């Protein structure tokens, strides 16, 4: 399978990428590691006329301690996130989950920003962004703006990043609690999660759910129950409360609801 023809425009800086986006508008797509976009292009589900490659912008790959949060550059590859001592210490849920994305080869190429901008409800990292209540820095022709995790995932494969904008940085508040867990249920190694959940248990607990809606979603009812000190089993029973999981070849809606309660129960018991 070979993608449809496109013009290739490598960018050497974020500014250049944004200028190229302004020039080519909705004909263009940004490519970073390409592990979400290239499979779609090979299937001709995505047919951008112009591909703007940000893979060479080394300034966008970083993991930095900023006092109350850790800043992660959008181009940071999953493998660097997985192995970062800074992230293992301050946002262990993120480092752990990055090590469960795809397989080693995928983690060597795929980037955190690319995964988030793909906005796939079946992806692992969006659930972590929700659970950790991260902020996302988006840069466009009018400068930089900050979007909270809850406002980032807007629809199926759609995010708050506009056609003329670039996700540049994700800011993860340092985790001060002790308990966290990532649970992913799939039938084969390297498959997407049929359902998964990411849990950070602190004074303001966060629970992000995988494949439980048309976007990455937060288990708000379970979070509230956890915050008010309800028993783990009662919290887990609320995993799917208010959510609308899809039915597809991997599982029907009621099966996903069941899985979400089981997985959140495991997350709570294991955290």
């Amino acid at each position, binding site marked *: 399978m070979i993608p449809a023809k496109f013009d*290739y425009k490598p960018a050497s800086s974020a500014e250049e990428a944004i200028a190229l986006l302004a020039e080519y508008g909705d004909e263009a797509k940004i490519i970073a590691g390409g592990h979400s976009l*290239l499979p779609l292009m090979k299937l001709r589900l995505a047919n951008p006329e112009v591909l703007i490659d940000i893979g060479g912008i080394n300034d966008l790959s970083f993991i930095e301690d900023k006092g109350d949060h850790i800043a992660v550059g959008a181009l940071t590859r999953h493998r660097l996130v997985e192995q970062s001592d800074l992230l293992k210490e301050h946002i262990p849920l993120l480092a752990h989950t990055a090590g469960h994305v795809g*397989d*080693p080869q*995928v983690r*060597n190429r795929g980037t955190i920003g690319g995964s988030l901008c793909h906005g796939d409800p079946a992806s692992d990292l969006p659930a972590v962004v929700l659970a950790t209540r991260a902020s996302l820095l988006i840069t466009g022709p009018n400068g930089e703006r900050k979007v909270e995790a809850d406002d980032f995932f807007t629809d199926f494969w759609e995010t708050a990043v506009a056609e003329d904008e670039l996700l540049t940085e994700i800011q993860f508040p340092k985790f001060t609690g002790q308990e966290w867990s990532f649970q992913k249920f799939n039938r084969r190694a390297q498959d997407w999660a049929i359902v998964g959940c990411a849990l950070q248990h602190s004074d303001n607990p966060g629970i992000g759910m995988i494949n439980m809606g048309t976007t990455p979603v937060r288990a708000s009812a379970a979070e509230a129950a956890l915050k008010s000190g309800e028993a783990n089993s009662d919290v887990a029973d609320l995993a799917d409360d208010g959510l609308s999981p899809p039915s597809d070849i991997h599982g029907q809606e009621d099966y996903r609801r069941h899985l979400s309660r089981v997985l959140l129960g495991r997350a709570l018991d294991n955290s």
Partner: protein
Amino acid sequence: MTFPIKITVNGKSHETEVDPRTLLVHFLREDCQLTGTHVGCDTSNCGACTVLLNGEAVKSCTVLTVQATNQEVQTVEGLAPPDGPYTPIQEGFRQEHGLQCGYCTPGMLMAGTALLNEIDNPSEEQIREHLEGNLCRCTGYEMIVRSIQWAAENPDGIPVEIGEGS
């Protein structure tokens, strides 16, 4: 429209122009005539197309050739020099019968090479985790794992002249 590239493959520099949509695996197989790298699933699942890009294992069916410009690629042909000896990984697959049909083998060799470059003496669990992205349709995983263990235990391999057989 073509795009100029400069890529080092197995130590040899290639300066040419490619259609930007050319996948790295097709550039290696068709332009460089290095057909050891296989196209398996073509969907970044099976790992038969695994090569090293700047020393890291990647699936060359999901990398554009233009993304690899000014970088170094190593394929299975770049493991042993033409006059031998085999690398420990290759010798391990020979000693432990690490292949049946052989289709997945180039990818297994490159994934195994990347693993041993990073961890000298991996546990069985680490080997299995590292091979998560490589499928063997013959399901010969036991012997593949043993082959990599053999390579870890014999970092100097056994010097065997390629072509002589034994």
